[in-house]
């Protein structure tokens, strides 16, 4: 069956995207609101997370409790995230309840109560969340890494900074919502079982307060250049040293994007990939070692994590960096073939999930301005070869590595 995508632009400018899926009884949707951390004013890092909590604490004619009960009553599973570019709020649920869910989400986005006392609770939870990261060094190291790797403010921590969260007020946060919940720049994506005309009609009929329509155009991301600090160590008397490492690569819109993806897959796609083989299987240095592609609209990197006991930390870091460098020296046909099969297979396996598809079509539209079909992605992966990947690696040699470690021992 040929893939079909739906697209419609509402009068207020909001883009509605859809991908129907025959085999499922569920539907997943997400509103991508242009209020990601990188788009927020300076000095309020973490506000995205506070907002994503606060707007659920009462909306329209419902109190916090009534709203939550209504969502639970639909058997709806919330799926929300705060990223660099967007706050995405959405859900996955059985398809029959979609219209009722969208009415509730319209209230949450357009008519959240935003009460002062509820703000304090949402902010307190965000602060506690940052403190809890100290007890989860594996996750913390990746937040610290992104912040140091990406040009400011792209890598801002979506968990937030305690001092900036403490200085947030209900008033300043309301102002952020007013400025950034700009429907003309919001993308809505739905995938699974739905009636597209009915969804569009329902969304067109939402009663929009004027404020949302007239919201300020969101500010452009500034590029303040990469941070100069290449290695940072954070001391923690834990059992392991947690190593996060990132190096620059091409963005999703670049013509070399698929070469980059295949290269990362050769490095860390499956259990036969280079990092797992050289670091874990041959030497037993780590339990967890993996690299993946991490792309934003205007910057991208290859991000790697390895955790090991302190006495093996230096050897692990040296091996991992060694494997990045060794990639451009040569790749076998079999390695490329396995990398390509792995990428294609994971694409199709994910395409069975309504949540994955809703996320994918929304993300594509934001980054590329259009939705890529599975066939297009498959054929682009197909087109890569040993020569194309090696050519890409030689023209885009891994140079600077941003490295962060958390553990009892600093590395060189």
């Amino acid at each position, binding site marked *: 069956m040929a893939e079909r995508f739906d697209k419609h632009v509402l009068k207020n400018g909001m883009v509605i995207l859809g991908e129907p899926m*025959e085999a499922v009884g569920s539907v997943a949707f997400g509103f991508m609101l242009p209020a990601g951390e990188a788009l927020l004013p300076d000095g309020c890092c973490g506000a995205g997370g506070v907002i994503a909590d606060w707007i659920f604490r009462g909306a329209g004619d419902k109190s916090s409790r009534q709203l939550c009960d209504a*969502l639970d009553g639909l058997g709806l599973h919330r799926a929300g995230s705060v990223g660099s570019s967007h706050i995405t709020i959405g859900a996955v649920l059985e398809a029959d309840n979609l219209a009722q869910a969208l009415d509730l989400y319209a209230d949450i986005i357009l008519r959240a109560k935003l009460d002062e006392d509820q703000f304090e609770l949402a902010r307190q939870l965000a602060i506690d969340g940052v403190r809890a990261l100290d007890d989860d060094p594996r996750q913390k190291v990746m937040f610290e890494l992104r912040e140091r790797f990406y040009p400011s403010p792209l890598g801002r921590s979506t968990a937030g900074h305690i001092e900036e969260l403490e200085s947030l007020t209900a008033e300043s946060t309301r102002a952020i919502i007013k400025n950034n919940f700009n429907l003309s720049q919001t993308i809505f994506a739905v995938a699974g079982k739905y009636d597209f005309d009915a969804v569009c009609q329902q969304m067109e009929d939402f009663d929009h307060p004027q404020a949302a329509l007239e919201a300020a155009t969101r500010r452009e991301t500034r590029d303040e250049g990469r941070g100069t600090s290449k290695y940072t160590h954070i001391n923690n008397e834990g059992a392991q040293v947690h190593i996060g490492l990132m190096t620059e690569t091409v963005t999703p819109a670049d013509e070399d994007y698929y070469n980059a993806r295949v290269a990362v897959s050769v490095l860390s796609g499956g259990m036969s990939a280079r990092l797992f083989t050289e670091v874990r299987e041959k030497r037993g240095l780590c339990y967890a070692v993996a690299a993946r592609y991490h792309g934003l609209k205007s910057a991208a990197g290859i991000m790697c994590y390895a955790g090991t006991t302190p006495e093996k930390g230096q050897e692990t870091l040296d091996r991992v960096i060694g494997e990045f460098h060794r990639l451009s020296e040569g790749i076998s046909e079999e390695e490329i073939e396995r990398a390509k099969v792995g990428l294609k297979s994971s694409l199709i396996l994910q395409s*069975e999930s309504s949540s994955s598809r809703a996320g994918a079509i929304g993300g594509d539209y934001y980054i590329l301005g259009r939705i890529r079909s599975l066939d297009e992605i498959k054929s682009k992966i197909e087109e890569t070869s040993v020569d194309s990947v090696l050519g890409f690696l030689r023209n885009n040699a891994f140079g600077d590595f941003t490295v962060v470690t958390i553990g009892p021992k600093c590395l060189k």
Partner: protein
Amino acid sequence: MEFKKKNLANGLNVIGEVNKSAKSAAVGFFVKTGSRDESKEVNGVSHYLEHMLFKGTERLNAFEVNEAFDRTGAQFNAFTSEENTVFFAAVLPEYLVEVTELWIELMRPALRDEDFDIEKNVIKEEIAMYKDLPSFDAMERCRSLHFEAHPCGNSVLGSGESIDNLTAEQMRAYFVRRYAPNNMVLACAGNFDWGQILSIAESSCSKWQKQAAGRKLEACGGSKKKERVEKPNLAREHICLMSAGVPAQDPRRFAASILGTIIGDDVGSRFFWELVDKALAESATMQFGAMDGTGTFSSYIRCSSENVYKVLDIVRGIFSGLSKNGITDDELRKAKNKILSALVIKNELPMGRLIDLGFNWIYLERYRTNRGRHQ
């Protein structure tokens, strides 16, 4: 949706749920063995053995195994719990036969000394990694405190010491006893040809020898003990509570699972409104865990040191309120809706379906459709 099953002469159960409209298929071996089946001397062997199955057979070395999986583009992995070791893979339908044959081959591993020695380092790294995850560390300590001498209190990973002392010889002996065909289920879900998979299983697994692979089942009421561990590098309080629940075979397991959702689902539960919504704890969840012949309710709560007594008082209040007044009709309705829709969503993927299918057979020797539970 079509359910198929066959019990081979050596006791291996082969089961499948065919869904021709799926784009993928999933296959897995469910082995009824875990840390509860270990003696103190070999604690951690089930999980270590799970790693060693990927190290190859007489015909394949570890690198060849990894390459064989990756050539099919499979998303594959394995996990070990207190009572099960599960090996699974999701693939495009055209690769299912190849991956099934590979799993079957791996179920009779070489368990070479040199692989055993290298993998010991990886196991010890895994133990170290979980030590840096206080939520896991506290839960494991709580489980051991709750079960005391009952074998379900055994650590899945084992300790640095038990792993250091474990020999390849001990592992091989454990393997022969526990990876017997009558102690395993081969399950498939999604888009596949049942006849083809069954004939592969019949021709390749029939030579596996039946063993006396029993398991002693004893109830456990729980120790009701308390323990506090202080670690200077921790920023938060990590609280675990465990109490006795009903076994996986008990018809009340559905009620127990609904109760877990009502008390401790991540949103909309009693824990949520009393603790998380009020910002007294940033995380507070409870789950019912059905086990073979026993069961648990386990809670995990994370909060600041200042709030710890207040939080514990509230938790006690929630529990005593429940035993006095029970639950409301509205709570019951919401919990059912949440559990049912989660099932529907999870089971849309052959991988999600495989896990339910396998566990239903392991515990109940029964097939249950996606619908029907909790109704």
